[in-house]
């Protein structure tokens, strides 16, 4: 499209189009039903006048005439008093319903497109899967490195703690001799402190170095359960873990029970 003002004249189907443009923008367009020069001679001056009345400068130095209207060149030059250039106007091909592509080819092309789409999806899926595996491997490697780092720290601190470990093991092994929490007199005292009332009696007491069993009798089963709860809560007996099986109910409704304690 030329710069400045231009006038284009070209055929479109059965009509002849007259268009005025200003800097490439369409200002006025009119279609004439007849494409012969006489008709143009009659209507073009009127059209130019109406353009001028609308404020459009129709005296353009650029007059472009389609090559198919070559025979009207002199007529147009005479009317517009400007040199006329012959140009070729390309029109888009008309849409037609006719399709000569064979059906099998069309199906094959659709199939190829679908395959390409699926291939693309599979590549994405495979990539995501591989990425996930890679991330998991990285995580595994990171944890292995962390284990290695901790191993080095443990090995570094080991000589310092070896003595403490050995002493602790020795202390624990000797606990029945040196820790009063394992002494029968202390355990008996705290067991008696835990008796909920005089209705609960201890009838037998057995102890080995690290195990205790207490046989007793309570006027009611509930008292036996109360006793075991108190024993479990007694902080001075925390060196042992106590358990009690369900008490045996005697003919006089008393409950016979046995507490068993194991060193923690």
């Amino acid at each position: 499209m030329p710069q400045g003002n231009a006038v284009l004249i070209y055929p479109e189907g059965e009509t002849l189009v007259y268009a005025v443009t200003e800097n490439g923008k369409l200002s006025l367009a009119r279609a004439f039903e007849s494409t012969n020069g006489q008709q143009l001679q009659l209507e073009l001056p009127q059209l130019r006048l109406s353009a001028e009345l609308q404020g459009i400068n129709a005296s353009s130095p650029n007059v472009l005439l389609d090559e198919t209207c070559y025979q009207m060149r002199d007529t147009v030059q005479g009317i517009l008093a400007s040199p006329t250039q012959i140009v070729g106007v390309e029109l888009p091909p008309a849409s037609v319903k006719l399709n000569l592509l064979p059906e099998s080819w069309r199906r094959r092309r659709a199939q190829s497109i679908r395959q390409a789409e699926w291939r693309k999806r599979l590549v994405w899926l495979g990539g995501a899967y591989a990425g996930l595996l890679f991330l998991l491997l990285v995580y595994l490697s990171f944890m292995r490195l962390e284990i290695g780092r901790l191993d080095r720290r443990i090995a570094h601190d080991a000589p310092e703690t070896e003595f403490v470990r050995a002493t602790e093991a020795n202390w624990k092994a000797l606990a029945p001799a040196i820790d009063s929490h394992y002494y029968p007199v202390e355990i008996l005292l705290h067991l008696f402190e835990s008796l909920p009332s005089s209705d609960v009696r201890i009838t037998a007491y057995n102890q080995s170095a690290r195990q205790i069993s207490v046989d007793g009798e309570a006027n009611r089963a509930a008292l036996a359960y109360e006793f075991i709860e108190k024993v479990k809560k007694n902080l001075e007996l925390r060196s042992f873990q106590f358990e009690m099986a369900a008490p045996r109910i005697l003919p006089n409704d008393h409950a016979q029970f046995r507490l068993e304690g194991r060193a923690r």
Partner: protein
Amino acid sequence: MMIPAWYKRMNPRERVLSWIIAGTLFVFLNLLIVSWLFGALGRTRQDLAARKATLTEQELYVKERDLWTKRGQWIQQHQPNLKNPAEASALLDQLKQVAGKHNVLIENPVIGSGETAPYHQTVFASIETKSTWPPLVHFLYDVQQPDAFVVFETVNLAIDGSDPTMMRGKFKIARWFAPAQGAKQ
């Protein structure tokens, strides 16, 4: 994409079969990989937790080093050494002495040497007692003190069937001596 000649030579049925086999192999291979990976992750996580626990334990040991040093020294200073086989007899004499002090009757005394463990070697005295409850408590209290390294290895206490005011006791009382030289590190 280049299609191999061997694939081109296959008929559609063979191609489907080959795809099924390849797909199955692929799935199994991936199952193996994923199974190994998650197994390794689980094991590594456990190892990591164990290392962290060990490190925490070590830090605690370092903090408590002074306490354990004192305890170690105390054991070394106070745990008696087994000098001769007569230690069991000495233990029984000591028990008789304490029992006599509190009017606790001792019956069926037996002495012997007991087990040798990494942290101690023992001699023991087995006794049966008959007394009321208060003297028995005093007897138990006097026999066992931390620096005496005396352990009641077995205790059986019960009310006397013939006299409910009396307590019957069966005790195996041991003295835990320091282990033989070189057994303890």
